[in-house]
């Protein structure tokens, strides 16, 4: 038995309890050894026995849904895995991309657009790594349009951009994209993921009304280009009705059922720490001290105690949520009480017991980072917390890292919510065997500084990154590429199109949006482009036309209008913003869907746009015969436009689908497709060729990836 049991005895008093706690300590020792044995011994291969003793001082174990134990891969080794995946995927996609004759560039010769380039190419130069060349205009247009607005450019966008002779046309394009309405759609999806906005979560159902309200809050904030610190403040201090005020749903989402109120205060602290500070280890620390658990994971967390973490949770100890049901659907009201404390008096629930520490029976709010400040007179607790959070340099670092990862595929800190506060600045003293965590600490710091000293302006940050030549490098690397180069950003990394991007890119390339028919209860059926957002009673709240405008990855709901789009979206693993994160993994099912799903077939086939449903195999999307004048699919339009040469048809399909011109080599390979088979009518041969090429381009590597 570890010796620590004496301390337990003195604080708890009861011999029986001491026995139990001692047993717990024993279990922990066993688990510790398990960790040691399988992965976490230190640099010298020595297990530190004192960890066991220290652990016993704060008895603990993990809970049934401890996120660390449940998905340790979220914490350990993911950085290397992600790097390797990014590297391999980029190699794959780049190998299949058109374009030849590009050469590596010495980083010293790379023109610098802003301080990002200074810090990236400077570091690359010191390391002696060559840079990829800058990407072409076609590549830049598609990349930036996808990243900033979630859509692919139209054929006209491509030809106009290529024609444009302006020296700063890329700069101008970025401004256009950043101030487009689509920008708000895309980043509302991004923040919806970050804030885990979903109507139906395992810990609480915000309901569709709540998820809608939260989406509206995010969307409106983006439209207004709200100061990001203000946005965070509004969420942390939210009060009111969850359907009327979207911010309230941030607080609602922190709910932890089946336990005492302290579990929810902890849940809110975890959510705040993870979302706004990138510190997912808060979840561990609210169960137990970091020592003995996180030593191999996070230097900062390893020396942080559960008591420190309670100080953060205590800011939420006066947050109250009440539920009212309207038509059997829940909505919530969040208020701030004037009394109430974080008491150390629990012996059940989702986290281990909270027992008095000496004579301390409740924990006062205390910001556990930096300032260690508390609540000032006259200030309510959450207002104080919002003040501390938004003034914390880590607040800016966290969001800068999230957005850098979104645009650059690989975060400075990866996974992006696993910051180690003890390994951020070059001056840090760290235990042996540890190195600085961010791949480019100076740049992370400079971006965070720029962000916070310029009004926490998200558009400015996004523009700054996408304007840099670092962002504008080619994903091709005509030389020997090594996974060790990944942290240097010596080329642009690729990513698969996200579910919504894929859906919308297919719709945009083929020019066939989904069409649905909605019949209100006792009313008249109406058809619409896109799909309706329906509430729990199937009453239409609004209509949307693009998947990127969905408020929630649970929409469109199963068995409801738009469900065929939803099944297609789900196969691209958009996650549920709760237990399953969005992933960029591929699968056979995706390949089958891209080749044969009705969603694709309908958009490739010439007949699908006509009135006949005979060969549609039950597919009702889009509804045949609906506004055929208005919706003319790319395939149908090319069939019905006279005077086009086969080469022109190919070019048009390329521009619509891949946002680029075909190479001469590609045209040569495709042209034989138009040759009629023996006895085949010329018109049918042409139709089959156009359909076939459309299908091929939708399945091509440079359609499936943002490269």
């Amino acid at each position, binding site marked *: 038995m570890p010796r620590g049991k004496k301390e337990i005895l003195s604080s708890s008093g009861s011999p029986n309890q001491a026995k139990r706690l001692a047993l717990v300590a024993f279990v922990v020792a066993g688990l510790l050894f398990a960790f040691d044995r399988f992965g976490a011994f230190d640099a010298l291969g020595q297990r530190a026995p004192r960890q066991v003793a220290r652990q016993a001082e704060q008895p603990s174990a*993990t809970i049934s849904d401890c996120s660390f134990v449940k998905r340790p891969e979220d914490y350990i080794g993911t950085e290397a895995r992600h790097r390797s995946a990014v590297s391999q995927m980029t190699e794959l996609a780049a190998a299949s991309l058109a374009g030849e004759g590009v050469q590596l560039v010495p980083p010293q010769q790379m023109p610098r657009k802003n301080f990002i380039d200074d810090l990236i190419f400077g570091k690359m130069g010191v390391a002696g790594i060559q840079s990829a060349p800058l990407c072409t205009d076609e590549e830049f247009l598609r990349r930036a349009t996808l990243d900033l607005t979630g859509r692919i450019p139209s054929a006209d966008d491509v030809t106009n951009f290529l024609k444009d002779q302006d020296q700063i046309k890329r700069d101008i394009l970025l401004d256009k994209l950043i101030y487009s309405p689509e920008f708000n759609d895309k980043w509302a999806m991004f923040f919806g993921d970050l804030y885990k906005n979903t109507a139906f979560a395992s810990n609480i159902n915000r309901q569709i009304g709540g998820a809608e309200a939260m989406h509206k809050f995010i969307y409106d904030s983006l439209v207004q280009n709200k100061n990001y610190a203000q946005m965070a403040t509004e969420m942390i201090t939210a009060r009111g009705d969850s359907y009327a005020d979207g911010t309230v749903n941030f607080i609602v989402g922190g709910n932890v059922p089946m336990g005492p109120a302290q579990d929810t205060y902890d849940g809110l602290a975890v959510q705040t720490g993870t979302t706004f500070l990138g510190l997912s280890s808060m979840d561990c620390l609210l169960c137990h001290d970091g020592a003995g658990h996180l030593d191999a994971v996070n230097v900062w967390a390893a020396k942080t105690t559960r008591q420190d973490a309670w100080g953060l949770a205590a800011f939420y100890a006066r947050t109250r949520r009440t539920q009212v049901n309207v038509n059997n659907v829940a909505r919530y009201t969040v208020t701030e009480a004037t009394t109430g404390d974080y008491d150390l008096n629990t012996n059940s629930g989702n986290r281990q017991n909270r027992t008095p520490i000496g004579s301390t029976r409740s924990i006062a709010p205390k910001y556990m980072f930096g300032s260690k400040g508390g609540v000032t007179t006259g200030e309510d607790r959450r207002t104080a917390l919002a003040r501390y959070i938004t003034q914390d340099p880590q607040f800016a670092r966290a969001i800068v890292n999230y957005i850098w990862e979104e645009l650059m595929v690989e975060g400075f800190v990866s996974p992006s919510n696993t910051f180690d506060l003890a390994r951020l600045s070059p001056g840090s003293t760290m235990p042996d065997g540890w190195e600085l965590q961010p791949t480019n600490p100076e740049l992370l710091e400079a971006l965070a500084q720029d962000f916070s000293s310029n009004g926490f302006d998200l558009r400015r940050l996004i523009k700054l990154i996408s304007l840099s030549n670092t962002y504008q490098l080619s994903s091709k690397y005509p030389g020997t590429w090594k996974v060790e180069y990944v942290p240097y950003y010596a080329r642009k990394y690729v990513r698969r199109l996200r579910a919504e991007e894929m859906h919308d890119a297919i719709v945009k390339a083929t020019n066939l949006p989904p069409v649905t028919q909605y019949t209100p209860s006792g009313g008249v059926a109406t058809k619409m482009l896109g799909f309706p957002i329906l509430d729990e009673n199937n009453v239409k709240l609004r209509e949307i036309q693009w998947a990127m405008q969905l408020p929630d990855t649970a929409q469109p709901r199963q068995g409801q209008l738009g469900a065929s789009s939803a099944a297609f979206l789900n196969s691209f693993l958009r996650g549920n913003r709760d237990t399953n994160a969005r992933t960029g993994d591929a*699968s056979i099912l995706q390949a089958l869907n891209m080749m044969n799903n009705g969603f694709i077939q309908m958009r490739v086939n010439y007949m699908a746009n006509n009135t006949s449903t005979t060969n549609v195999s039950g597919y009702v999307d889009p509804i045949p015969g609906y506004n055929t004048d208005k919706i003319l699919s790319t395939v149908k339009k090319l069939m019905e436009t006279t005077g086009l040469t086969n080469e022109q048809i190919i070019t048009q399909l390329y521009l619509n689908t891949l946002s680029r011109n075909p190479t001469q080599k590609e045209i040569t390979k495709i042209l034989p497709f138009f040759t009629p088979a023996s006895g085949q009518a010329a018109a049918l041969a042409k139709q089959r060729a156009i359909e076939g090429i459309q299908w091929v381009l939708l399945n091509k590597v440079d359609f499936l990836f943002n490269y």
Partner: protein
Amino acid sequence: MKEHLQQMDSVDHSCEDCQTLRPANSALFGGPTIGRREFFQIAGTGVAGSFLVPVFSKEVKADTYAAQLNGKARNVIFIHMDGAPSHTDTFDLKVGSWTPADFTPDTYNGVIFPKGLMPNIYANLKNIAIVRSLRAPALVHGLQQTWKQIARNPTSLLGKVAPNIGAVVAREFEAQRQPNQKLPGFVALNGGNVVQSGYFNAKYTPFAVTASTNGLGGLTNNFAGPDDFGKRYQLLQDLDGENRVDSPLGDPVTDMDGFYQQSRAMMYNPEVDAVFKFSTADANRYGILNGTTPTPTGFGNSCRTAFQLLKANLGTRYVQINIGGWDNHTGIYATNAGIYPSARQFDSGVGQLLNDLAAAPGLNGSSMLDETLVVWMGEFGRTVRTGTGTAGLNGNAGRDHFFQHFVCFAGGGVSGGRAIGETSSDGFAVTSPGWSQGRPVANEDIAATIYSALGIDYTKTLHDDPYQRGFEYVPFATQGLWYPVNEVFSRDALPSRPKLNPRGR
């Protein structure tokens, strides 16, 4: 581990009690002893090793254990009872005042079983070997679910990239694939937490589909006939270049195209199409009787599909099926709730699966059951002693998470009608391990048993993992740390612990 804590809080036993639960001299729950010297020797061989400081690469010079293989099975159906079923209410039944009357406990060949709860399984006990000396290393659903699918601690370095056992099996059998065998080697049915192919090529990724009488969608392109489709596919290959098919950059790079190739091979193939379709009568038979109306279940459909997949012999060798609903923290015996819905679905699905496998001729003259190993287990067991509620139950009339549990094997050379290992009268601890190693059985031993049944050398190490540490099929098996429960294959007296078989490296 909340439930674990509750267990500890409510059970008033001392540390001395706990010591008795441990294998002798073991510092790790459920794991065998390993000395410090051996520890650092094997630290470099693969699974161990710090992810921070990859410095251990010492050659292992110690004597090694050769694999002991049974090798009678060619397929595996692995059924994951998601949520952790109560061992003392199912396959390690302990009858007490709490036991509902409709469990109607009965014995077969000395093995006590809740005949009333699972009549079809009871009727099949002659084919089933129950291992009751199984201990889980963790009481967290996700961790233990992953652990048992990859045969190693998921928090270990290779745990991050380790393939599912099914992916290893698919890869091992890839060389046996015949030209007409178009189906993926590894199929996963009925959802759940399915570990993928790890660092292996994506063609070994479980093909996760939904089983239904209508079969699988997307196997044909309704507009383009097979010929047109073939032309399109060829053009796609031409345009994306050789890299799409045969990349000079290595396996991971061809992964994306691997999915396309596999999908393509399954299309326009009536044989493949038929594998996924079955009659409503079959769906009802594998489903459950709800009152007098037979109700198809997702699990039953999956069991039927698994049978057809293996019977068709189109390349699928490993099928994983999930059945949820076992996490009975509250009201475990509630009428038509608690454990009942899962137990009934399970009983009907697995019962019919075993019946059909036994009735179908196999490839080698015996029955399909003889050449198909069917394995089922939860991720851990459930509490047997708590202080507050009805005897044996917690305050919510349920059972919480607990280390002790069971694993069952049937078919594939298994000698059934037996229970291996014994637990204390309340099911709290192992009293007799009942197998050659004289310690409780662990996840890794089950993996070794599966490999043994298939004749796959579980001591094998592949040297193609991204960390270049070597991927051991069963970690430390060459050091004799884990071992197959070969007792499930034989009624004979227990073999003694195998001798050291020095073969060096």
